[in-house]
């Protein structure tokens, strides 16, 4: 269990344009493991909403099932939230957005929730370009069910149980670009300088915005990294009771655009991040894919805004929905009345 709110807060907190303080964007106390990357993401979402001066109650939070999908409880208590079923958040979010096109939708998911059980819905959500921000807290494993490999785990990575992953990891950002997402970004949970503005941009984007956030799992981390250091750590773990989760600190990082940075995870493995220069985001899907791939070939994870198509048609527009939210319509707009029914009857004679 960790806390995303600081224990003490100055009585006169600064307010944003709408007069809210950051506390108005707080959530419940997190029950995730101390040091879990997911808590950093929650904090960034909270901060992004505060800085962007969004009305908390005009945001709806939707998630699937998993440690990551618990996150919406831990930010924005003034927003409605829906912790639905495993892997099917995309459809719930689609329905919600159809019912009321005026709210801001934040979907939160995990790599298990999205890349395994949710893969089909994820792809079709992008195809429909639902107007929402979709954040995957990507830890390469199933945290809540205790550490199995997920479909984004790197080939050759070793799970806490000592199994070597024999399958290629799915790169969700590339997939999103290929399958038509109109905003695709990647970041690292501990890099709030990068993550917060990305979240703000995603929420401002008028269409489907995807952010793949590398978010280390303290307890069952599954990144490939340096095998040596990993093995060393493992040896250490062997002597521990299986149910012991040591207290850890969040991993924070900070580095400049256009540079690379190595981050050592809690288990001693290392990942290599490369920060794209902002403003360079391409609206050419093919070249975005190529850039991601060439970094991957150098074992680097490219972060930043990777693709953007600002002039996109979201689902509400492509379905030609009227501007008033469907859930506000009343009998007058909806019910054609007895006269019309009479004429329909006539047509059926």
């Amino acid at each position: 269990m960790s806390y995303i709110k600081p224990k003490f807060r100055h009585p006169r907190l600064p307010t944003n344009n709408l007069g809210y303080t950051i506390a108005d964007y707080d959530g419940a106390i997190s029950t995730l493991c101390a040091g879990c990357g997911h808590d950093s993401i929650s904090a960034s979402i909270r901060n992004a909403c505060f800085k962007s001066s969004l009305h908390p109650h005009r945001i709806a939070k939707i998630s699937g099932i998993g440690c990551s999908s618990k996150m919406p409880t831990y930010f924005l208590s003034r927003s409605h939230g829906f912790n639905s079923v495993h892997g099917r958040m995309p459809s719930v979010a689609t329905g919600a957005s159809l019912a009321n096109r005026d709210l801001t939708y934040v979907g939160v998911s995990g790599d298990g929730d999205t890349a395994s059980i949710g893969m089909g819905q994820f792809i079709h959500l992008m195809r429909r370009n639902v107007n929402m921000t979709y954040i995957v807290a990507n830890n390469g494993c199933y945290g809540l069910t205790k550490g199995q490999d997920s479909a984004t785990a790197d080939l050759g990575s070793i799970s806490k149980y000592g199994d070597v992953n024999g399958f290629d990891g799915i790169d969700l950002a590339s997939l999103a670009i290929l399958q038509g997402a109109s905003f695709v970004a990647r970041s690292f949970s501990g890099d709030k300088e990068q993550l917060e503005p990305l979240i703000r941009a995603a929420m401002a984007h008028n269409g489907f915005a995807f952010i793949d956030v590398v978010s280390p799992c303290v307890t069952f981390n599954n990144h490939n990294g340096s095998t040596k250091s990993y093995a060393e750590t493992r040896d250490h773990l062997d002597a521990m009771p299986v149910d012991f989760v040591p207290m850890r600190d969040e991993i924070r990082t900070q580095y400049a655009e256009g540079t690379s940075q190595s981050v050592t995870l809690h288990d001693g493995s290392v990942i290599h991040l490369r920060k794209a220069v902002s403003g360079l985001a391409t609206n050419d899907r093919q070249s975005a894919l190529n850039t991601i791939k060439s970094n991957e070939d150098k074992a680097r994870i490219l972060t930043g805004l990777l693709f953007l198509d600002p002039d996109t048609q979201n689902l509400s527009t492509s379905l030609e929905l009227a501007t008033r939210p469907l859930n506000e319509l009343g009998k007058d707009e909806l019910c054609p009345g007895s006269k019309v029914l009479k004429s329909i009857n006539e047509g059926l004679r």
Partner: protein
Amino acid sequence: MKQIKGTNDFVVKFANVNGTGSASANHLFAKAIFRMGIPVSPRNIFPSNIQGLPTWYEVRVSSKGYLGRRGGVDLMVCVNPQSMEQDIASVEPGGYFVYDNTKPLAPHLKRDDIHFFGIPFTEMCMREYSVPRLQQLLKNVVYVGALAALLDIDFGVLKGLLNDQFKGKEKLISSNVHALEMGYQYATENFQCPLPIKLKKGGNVAPHILETPHILMNGNTAAALGAIYGGATVAAWYPITPSTSVIDSFATYAKRLRIDAGSGKKNYAVVQAEDELAAMGMVVGAGWNGARAFTATSGPGVSLMSEFLGLAYFAEVPVVLINVQRSGPSTGMPTRSQQSDVLAAAYASHGDTKQVLLFPATPQECFEMTVNAFDLSERLQTPIIMMSDLDLGMNDWMSPPLEWDDNYEMDRGKVLDAQGLDDAKKWGRYLDVDGDGICYRTLPGAHPTKGAYFTRGSSKNEMAVYSESGDDYVRNVDRLLRKFETAKDLVPQPKTHPPIEVKKPKTKLKLGALFFGTSASPSYEAVEMLAPEGYPIDTMRIRAFPFHNDLDQFIHDHDLVFVIEQNRDGQMRQLIMNECQIAPTKLTSILNYSGTPITARDIANQIRTSLNTKSAKIVPLHAETA
């Protein structure tokens, strides 16, 4: 040789190949009878492919207005060599067989107890038309023309129908009328017309039919209209026979009736989902967010939706699901009808779940119950599953016109808006303030500081705070039971009719019959068949689950109750035994699960057999408990 006789009372069946355009011609035939004011019920029996396989169309004509299947065929029109043998075999002795004798009938197929009428349809059309497409297409119209003569169909009515159908396309009208005439002429010239079975306007038609100007429509269209009138704004679905036309019709009507006057934009959304899980997920999301949302599906879709149905039950999200049942299990027979999802729907999903079901029996009820489903789903904050079937959904039924009360107000249930939240003393999403098991919900975005809560399937307390306490869990699921109790008085109540008087009853037992949906019509007919034979049977038509206490009472008041349904396992009987305190030996199943709708004759036969052999089986109950 015997000749079947009857005015406005017979069964005609057409044997065709699918994809040849026959359905339209057959529909023309049925609709003409309908326009003559004579009760008719046509049924399409079609294969699960697009072109080239046998397909049938059965038209029942019934002066009394029985709309279920009777059983047996009096006149068969066969233009499909593939099925000729079985088609000939299916005609009642003394019946009539109309066929294409362009090729002569194989001698071994001849029966000497039925009447054959060979008409060279193919030859006539080859001679008359040069385009192969027309040769193929108009053949169907020619046999309708012949039937017009044989059965005495009002020719003017037929022409009127063609005028309506091809409005503005004069050439098409005249070619069709010509084809009709060709058939008519051939029949009058070669046969004694009309046959002893024939139609007569007015005739012996039951007064209650004559009094109302009926309409002819299928249940799926009616349900779609119900969704329009019920204020549905979000329809998410995945195509599956036989439910597809619910959404098709909804989209068609919405395009006409739901366009925002100012902008020309849509006041509704139809989304074809990637599968049934997604379709139901969208409905759940939209329902949670305050829109009236629904989906339509069939068997496999119900299975796939079951996880989400469990979520909606537990998270208390309004959801409307129209289940147009087909033969199961698994892929089953996708184009055949059954009532076999009763248990799957009532207990959809793992864990302790109970879902509210509605059982429409007519297009009118499809309409009304769909409207009602939206009210109920918001009132009860739970999924409402309307259990239609292929027979009801895809076939045309004669029906009194749909009615609408302009004073109708949608029941949006217990939703607190900003004002409501400000007025409320204490609010908790799962607090049972009124003691009816139904709590007050709020919609996202309603209030800047109040009413936000977290919806989850999993553990929670009354305040919607995460909790794994056993007490919180038990309180919550017990309240859901209380809500189910509340539902009993809100759902459509079962229907009874005044008992049938019987002069010399052959049994001392008080007999009852329970049925629902498309089993109702033939059941009523069977009961009327049996009354003059000395078996008075009271009836109750079930219209919803949870069952009203009247159902218990009905069973209690009878010694033996037949439960008539169209599935193998007697699922409604099981549901009754589960939910009521009924001695099972009281309930006897009358079943048909062949995939083609149950017939009145079949029901009557099964009841007769049961009454003649069952008496032994009725005793043990007394014995057992003595």
